[in-house]
């Protein structure tokens, strides 16, 4: 199908612009989420550095990613507007999942369902209470039938909300996605090893 040329086009564009750096040891996402890496990852920097999350990968951009959100405030989106290189004449403007204060767990998971729906068909398969970054939250699993190449992907996410005296609440989250065949089971322990070390970094004192 025609759509299958789009990922190649985007990948080539990204290849021409992206920067990748090695990540190991202690790392901080958005100055708010601290993690410790016992195995190295590759951090993919967005060409325009507009995404509100860090993207790390083991095998490459087309295959797997670990995304980390640190200290998202109410009213802030979880992603930038999806690039629209094509649009049907009657297509509606795409919504961007945006964090709001007071969201129950199922609505928090729904934000990530909406986020990954930009890449294909998403089905949430499991939601359970879990700790993330020292906060009570949820762990959720999902499948993603990737639209660009019909590849069956599998994913897992962790999300927690922390009270904040300034902003009311802050969202902390991580997701890991990889092909269902072979890759997900093999790489998941590496992603979980990072997630287990996540903690909220103290807000620096205001000067």
């Amino acid at each position, binding site marked *: 199908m025609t759509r299958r040329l789009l990922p190649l086009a985007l990948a080539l564009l990204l290849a021409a612009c992206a920067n990748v750096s090695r990540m190991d040891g202690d790392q901080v996402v958005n100055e708010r989420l601290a993690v410790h890496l016992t195995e190295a990852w590759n951090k993919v920097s967005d060409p325009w550095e507009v995404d509100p999350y860090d993207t790390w990968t083991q095998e490459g951009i*087309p295959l797997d990613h670990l995304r980390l959100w640190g200290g998202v405030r109410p009213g802030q989106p979880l992603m930038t507007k999806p690039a629209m290189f094509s649009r049907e004449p009657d297509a509606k403007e795409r919504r961007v999942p945006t964090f709001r204060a007071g969201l129950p767990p199922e609505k928090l998971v729904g934000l990530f369902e909406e986020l990954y729906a930009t890449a294909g068909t998403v089905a949430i398969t499991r939601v359970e209470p879990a700790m993330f970054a020292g906060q009570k939250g949820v762990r959720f699993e999902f499948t993603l039938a990737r639209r660009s190449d019909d590849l069956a992907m599998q994913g897992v996410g962790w999300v927690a909300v922390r009270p904040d005296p300034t902003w009311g609440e802050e969202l902390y989250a991580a997701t890991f996605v990889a092909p269902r065949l072979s890759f997900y089971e093999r790489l998941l322990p590496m992603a979980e090893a990072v997630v287990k070390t996540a903690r909220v970094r103290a807000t620096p004192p205001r000067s």
Partner: protein
Amino acid sequence: MHRIAFRAAFAAALVAVSCLAVPAVAQTGASSRNYAPGFSQRAAGSRMVVVQTDMELFSQSAGGVLEPRADWTEAAQKNFRDALMAQKRVVGDNTIALQEKDMDELAQLNALHGAVAEAVFIHHMLGAPALPTKGRLLDWTLGDAVQPLRERTGADYALFFWIRDSYASAERKVAIVAMALLGVGLAGGAQTGYASLVDLRTGRVVWFNNLARGFGDLREPEPARETVEALLKSFPEVAR
């Protein structure tokens, strides 16, 4: 026919490809980059299965819109397969060819290969950007996803292909000339192909090559033969 405008994306891709044109051409030659560490040739007496090529051909309209052409794709599949089977240094008595009906059950494996090959192309062959944890080595695997293919065929290796090819329509060619007279460059068709040899015991990609160029034509037998030869130029021999 369902039409999707890809002008911006495709133009961006062509810009990227043209920026990388020199290394892309160089990739067709034999290089240690094509081989996984420790691999140089297929084992003596080994069997290889050739997986049906994941292929799609497109026509590019005057405005740059890409439309899939099933008739071209069907012809290209035949031309590519015929040219491949004529490559006696690649295929021989120990080669097994899968049929399309076999691929119905292995469609996800072929899709997985497409994603792995794209990662190899971007992060290893182009190295733009390279993955620091890979150390500039051909170090990718399809893992245990290849086991059903090994069990079904008993083969030691599998040869996968992923190809996308587009051709400027007559209207597009006129537009290219007209805009060139105005000093504006427009892109024509492009041929992108990946070929991977996978060790079915481990799933490891032991050899890889790619094409990323603005010429080539799979719709006709003779130029299809040139594409196959270019893609398999550094293909590993069988040990004696």
